[in-house]
Structure formats: C-alpha cells, structure tokens
C-alpha cells in the first residue's frame, strides 16, 4: 500500500493483493496484531497527503506506533459516510466532540483516524489518543484475541494539519479495504478449518466405516467445498477490483463481504457438527475460528447491510441513462 520512498514496498508489485495474502495467512492461525486497523489508516494517509504525513506513515510501517480507524458510532449500523461526531472549525484548527465505538485496538493505538461531520460534510481527522479530552474504554467482544474500544471525544482540539483531504472517496476506499481484508482472513480460516475437518472425517470411523463414507456427510462436505471456493472466488475478484481501483470496486467489495459473511459461519458451524460433542467445548480450537468468523460477519457491514447496498447500486445503475 505504501510506496517505497515512504518505507513501504510490495513483493508482487500489487500492494493490496500482497496484503490480502498476508491476511489469508493470518487467518490460518487466527493471529492477533493490529494489521487491519493500521492498514486502513495507512491507506488513507498514503492516498490523501503522503508527504504531509510521511513521518506518521514511516512510524506505522515500522511498527513503532499503532493507529486505528474510528468509524462506527454507538447504536448505529455500518454508515461510514454519516458520522454524528462533529468537528467544529476553530481559529487554530478543529474541535472534535462525540463518541465512536467498536474501534479495533483502540486501547492499543497511539493515533486514531476519526470520521467526523463538518460544515462541508464528512471528513477525517488524525487524533492522538493522549490528547486532552480523549477517553478510551475497552469493550467486550466475542473474539478472544481482538480488542475493541469505545472512544469519547470531549472538545478535543486538533490543528488544521490533522484534517485529511478527499473525504468521501477516501472513506469509500478505506471501507473497501477494511471489508475485503476481513474476507481474505476468513478465507484463510475456512481453508484451515475445512482441511482439518476433512482429515477428521476420513480418519474417524463409525460402524466400521469412515465418517466420510456416509452420503449425508459427504454431501455436506461437497456443499462446504463449493461455498469455500465461492468465498475464495468472490474475495479474489474484490481484491483485484480494489487493486485496480476499478469502477465496480465498491460493488465487488460489498458482494464479497455479503457472501463471505453469510457463508463463513455456516461452513464453520457445519464443521463443528462434523466433530460432534467435542466441537462445542473449550477442548477444541474450533470455537476460536468460529468467534473470528462471527465477529467479521458483522463488522464493517453485515451481509444484510451489504445486500441493501448491492440492491441500491443495481437500482442506481438501472435508473442511469443507458450508455450504449
């Protein structure tokens, strides 16, 4: 994501595709670490004013500081473009007031990129978590590794340079990145869980036959294989669209987030079922994967929210004059 002169770089020449591959690897171990929140903030800084924020970018890339995107608000669904947190212009910059929540690694972050409402619409502001008026409180989640926080801003003063340019496009791109990195991680989770469940079904015998020989179970595995490949397909398509900054990147990201969100928990629950009693205990790792997939089902837009977006995009497309 980050150009070489700012300390970044890419193996394949396609930074986002590389990042998605890393996310998929992380899924295999349900690893901790603030890759996603930091990536989302980096994407914004690099796109907005890379040189104005060169120092911050380098420190984030080097892992010396941690940043996160403060976008959700209490009691509201996924509506990144409609913040109720306000940024009021002052002589020296802005005053930020309101509450954000479900901020990943909020308690571990040095910096937050806060989406706030100004007189010119939604914009984003870099806010230090040690600034006066910032109150961070941890929130519980069903995941046992990821941490979330509620962050309150009481008249937090930032200078003019804290405001990022290119608001709506930037927020849109960050949303895509956040959504699809989750999908990539989930694909890694699914492949791992599916593989060890296949191995279990081939080994475990019941009535002198491996579980895998029972048609009802074999058919369930066939469905799972199909869903898994479909998750991989739609995630891959979205990664490509985002890498290329295609016109349909937003649509592709919503399609992938909806589909992966809908199917991932189904696949893992089916794997739990294949394992029998042990699958619903603390004695097997399955629940760790299920927690992450269930978390991601809802974060950055539930399948239902993205279905509504996909419909709205289709509707807008049909109403537009037909360009032949």
């Amino acid at each position, binding site marked *: 994501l980050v150009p070489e002169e700012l300390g970044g770089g890419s193996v394949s020449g396609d930074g986002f595709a590389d990042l998605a591959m890393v996310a998929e690897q992380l899924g295999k171990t349900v690893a901790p670490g603030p890759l996603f929140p930091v990536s989302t903030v980096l994407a914004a800084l690099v796109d907005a004013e890379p040189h104005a924020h060169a120092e911050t970018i380098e420190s984030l890339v080097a892992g010396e500081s941690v940043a996160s995107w403060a976008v*959700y608000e209490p*009691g509201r*669904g*996924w509506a990144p473009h409609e913040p109720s947190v306000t940024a009021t212009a002052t002589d020296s910059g802005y005053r930020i007031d309101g509450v954000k*929540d*479900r901020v990943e690694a909020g308690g571990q972050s040095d910096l937050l990129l806060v989406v706030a409402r100004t007189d010119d619409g939604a914009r984003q502001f870099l806010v230090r978590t040690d600034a006066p008026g910032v109150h961070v409180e941890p*929130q*519980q*989640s*069903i*995941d046992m590794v990821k941490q*979330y926080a509620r962050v309150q801003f009481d008249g937090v003063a930032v200078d003019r340079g804290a405001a990022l340019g290119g608001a709506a496009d930037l927020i849109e791109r960050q949303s895509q990145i956040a959504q699809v990195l989750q999908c990539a991680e989930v694909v890694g989770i699914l492949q791992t869980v599916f593989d060890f469940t296949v191995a*279990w079904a081939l*080994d*475990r*015998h*019941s*009535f*002198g*036959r*491996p*579980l895998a020989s*029972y048609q*009802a*179970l074999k058919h369930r595995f066939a469905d799972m294989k199909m869903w898994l490949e479909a998750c991989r397909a739609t995630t891959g398509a979205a990664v490509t669209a985002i890498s290329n900054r295609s016109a349909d990147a937003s649509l592709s990201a919503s399609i992938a987030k909806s589909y992966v969100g809908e199917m991932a*928990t189904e696949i893992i*629950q089916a794997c*739990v*079922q294949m394992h*029998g*009693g042990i*699958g*619903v*205990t*603390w*004695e097997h790792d399955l*629940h760790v994967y*299920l*927690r992450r997939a*269930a*978390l991601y*089902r*809802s*974060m950055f837009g*539930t*399948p*239902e*929210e993205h279905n509504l977006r996909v419909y709205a995009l289709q509707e807008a497309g049909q109403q537009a004059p037909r360009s032949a």
Partner: protein
Amino acid sequence: MSEAVNTVADVESVDEFRARAKAWLAEHMPPIDPAHPPAAHRDEERCWLRARELQKQLYDGGFAGICFPREYGGLGLDYAYQQAFNDESLSYEMPLILNTPTFTICCATLLDTAGEEQKRQHIAAALRGDEILVQLLSEPSGGSDLAGVLTRADRDGDRWVLNGAKTWSTSAFGADYGLCLARTNWDVPKHDGLTMFLVPIKHPGITLRRITQLNGSTEFCEEFLDNVDVGDDAVIGEVNDGWSVASRQLYHERRAVGMGSEFASGSGSEGGRSTPVNYVRLAAKTGQSDNERVRQIAGRALVHRAVSDQLGAHVFRSVNDGSLPPAAGTLLRLFHAETVTLEMDAGLAITGTAGVVGAEGEGLETGLRYLSRQTVCIGGGTSELARNVIGERVLNFPREYAADRGVPFNQVKHGKASR
C-alpha cells in the same frame, strides 16, 4: 400397570387421589411461580442435593414413584394418577432433574432388565432420594456408534475388572451409580460381546473430569475407568447380552423425549439457561422496533417456535393413538434442533454488530449464544442420527449399510485417533 389398576385403583379414584395430592402438596412442598420456576442448574452440586431433599419429602409423603411397582418402593398406580399429580404439582418446587436420566431411563430400564434383588435395592433407593443413577454409554472414540464400545471388562477370579473411558455422561458428578456398557468378548460381532454393569461412581478406580461447553455448562463429564472391579451382582441382565439392556435405555430415552413418560414426576420447566430470545426487547434495544425486515425475521422465528410446541402435542397424541410409531419422538428432537438453529440465526441477523462487540444485555449475549448453536444438533444423538432413525424406524426405509455387521469386533476398522 394394568395389574396395578386392578389391585389399587379400586381403593382410591383418580379424583380422590388428586384431591389428596393437592392438599399434601400445599402443606409440604415449597410453592413457586410456574411462569418463573427456580433454575435447577444440572451442573451445580447444590441443585442435586436439593433434588435429593425434595425427593425424600415426596417419598415420606407417599407420593414418590407413582407408576413404579409397590414391591420396589413405588405406588403401583396407573399413568392417570401420575398425570393428575403432575397437574397439581405445577406450582410447587419438584425434583425435576431426577426425572431424566434417573427415573425415566435408568430405573425404567432396571425394571425391564435387572434381577429382583437389583430392582429392590436400586429403584427403591432412587425413590427415597438416596441414589442418583446415570448412563455411561458414549465413549470418546464412539460418536453415534454406541455399540462400538472399547471399554473392556475382563474376568479376574470372581470379579470383573473394567478399563476404558466414557464421556458425555450428564451429571455424573452428582450421581451414585452408572449403567456402564463394556466389552466382555472381542471375538464376536460388536453387539454380541457387550455386558451392562451398574458401577458405583465413587469407586476409587474412576476419575471424573467435567467438560466445559462453550455455553458455560459443565453438566457433562468424562470418566476414566482404571481397574474398576465389581462383582457379578453388578451385571444387569446376562453377560454378553448388554446390548439388549442398552436398547431398552435408548427406547426409554426416545419415549421420555417424544411422548412423556409415566415414570417422570412433575412436568414444569427446569428453568435456567433455556430462556427463549425476547425479540421484541431485542429489536427495541438495537433501535429497530419499526424495521419491517427485522420484524419479519423475528415473526418467522416466533412461528417456528410455536409450531415446535404444537408438534410436541401432536406427536404425543399420535404415538398414543398408534398413528405414529414410538420412534416418532425423534421428530421432536430434530424439530427442536432446527428451530433453535433458526432462532440463533435470526438473533444474530437482527442484532448485527451489537451481537459481536459491546456488552451482554445489549446484544452481545446473542452472539455468545450463537457460538454454541450446534449443541442442540449434537446432544443426545446428532441430527444426522435423528434423520436415520426417522428414515428407518418411522418411514421404514432400508437401513444404512454397516461395514461392521456380522464382523468379529477385533477385525472392525477404527480411525487412527481411536486406536
């Protein structure tokens, strides 16, 4: 039971019995609000101690074991008396957690298969509240294949020595005896070399470990049997005929679930964890009371929930009038699992992000519940097994091909993990 009717019912009519029970209950049993029964958590020791107390009270009052024969400590009365007692006892605290497995499965099976002395000892003790019985059937290697038992019982002089492991035994930590299926002959097909033993749970050779489920329950146990020695008086039924005994247990279990059992006393709810989701409250909490999409999802869940109850009443009637076979109880098992699955999915979809990040009571409880969704599709035999039972015993479709049929057990294939 028909015998019982002839000898006892002449003395006291159901109505007279009901009136006497009503008066006695009012005087001796603690009253409760049946809409909000006190929770009897099966994973807490104090709840089992409380159940023993209440059972003793019933026994002392002459209302324990209404349908069990008099010679084993019961009253020898017809089911109608038990039903009258169930009606009357609804607003009193009852030892409901003793019903299953102690009375409806274990004691019912002993009644069918045990020797006279065994029945006199154990059924009577259970009715007095002195003994709690459990089933030691499943094994870590076994899954749905209950007869594929690897626990062995070897003859040593005039004793039997048991070694192996059992699992998913409900409430074994609170129990006194377990019906334990073990292999006594390895050279014959799997069903033909099993023997049922009634082993004391407190035996020093038994190590008991609680299993922690995702929903927090520690009701189930795993037991390791290390040179557990018992005498011939522990054998239920004949040596190498243990599968007959286990089959009776399965029969009574299905019956208890499907149509109620005359050996159960009291019919209220055990309370506790199984409180259904309150969708109206959930929608309000997440600010979606007026959202038609949310209301429709919740309405559908409510419909399926209601049909689950209606199906229960229908199957009960149909099994009783013979229009459905007893195995139809499995329809309820499967429908319940499907309904709970649908409800958990509905809950997750309605709650959205509040179900995965936030506080319990504000939606997070929905996400936490969802994590153990499959519990209802696994416990007490998987949903797949239930579909086999419905297909083969309700619809009479051909039975599943079993690769171990007729094969000496020591030649049957097992997975690597079970070896």
